[in-house]
């Protein structure tokens, strides 16, 4: 039947496709399918309202990606989303980070070379001594 007054707003067929993509699952009873769809609807509402409430988007009467990403990082309940909602940084910042890491790496290498030289000097002294 149509969209009027439906018990759940997400399409069961779509939810079922996602559930079936899970390899260990053999079959799904009709009630379980309905409950999963309904739970997903509640989840979406919860995620959206939580993110809106705790985010900065509301300063402009909006819910933004950043609000969602922030929720995934800060709130334990939503931490399972952290990988798919990564924080975003400016490309310029990222490049600077890369450069810094590279510089830090090079300083470390110099120290190692100094140590090796010292060892060689000591070896030479001993030979001369005997």
């Amino acid at each position: 039947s149509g969209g009027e007054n439906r018990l759940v707003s997400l399409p069961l067929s779509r939810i079922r496709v996602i559930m079936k993509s899970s390899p260990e699952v053999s079959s799904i009873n009709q009630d379980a399918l309905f409950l999963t769809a309904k739970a997903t609807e509640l989840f979406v509402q919860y995620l959206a309202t939580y993110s809106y409430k705790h985010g900065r988007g509301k300063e402009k009467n909006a819910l933004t990606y950043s609000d969602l990403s922030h929720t995934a990082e800060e709130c334990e309940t939503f931490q399972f989303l952290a990988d798919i909602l990564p924080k975003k940084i400016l490309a310029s910042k990222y490049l600077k980070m890369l450069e810094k890491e590279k510089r830090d790496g090079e300083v470390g290498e110099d120290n190692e070379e100094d140590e090796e030289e010292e060892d060689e000097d000591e070896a030479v002294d001993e030979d001369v001594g005997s």
Partner: protein
Amino acid sequence: MGNRIEGLGEVQVDNVDSSSHVSEAGRFILPDGVNISKEARSAISRAASVFVLYATSCANNFAMKGKRKTLNAGDVLSAMEEMEFQRFVAPLKESLEVYRREQKGKKEARKDKDKKADSEEQDKSREEENDDDDERMEEEEQNDEEEVDN
């Protein structure tokens, strides 16, 4: 008024007093007129898919513990508690009641309709069945699964 979330369809947004974020029905809603960016919609859609997978995997663990191959309602409810979404359990149970009543009503309505179709001329009954095919196909699939469980 609804909000379209890509890949998932309409998610109802209730009209309500914006000081709290809970509608009269106890659902979480966004205040009226809040703009959800395109990027945010796409992210919500992905988050929902991940949720379904996580919930399914969790529910399946409960089914396996019970040595069953078919996920049932109890498994999904147990999964919600496991995932720390206990707040969903009560509203889910309520919705399930309504859903079961609806399904039962549909089943009985179909039985009556089938009886009626049998008693009419063959041509006429074929016409009716074709009209309902689309609606009934999914239901028949669903019923097949139910029968397997029983």
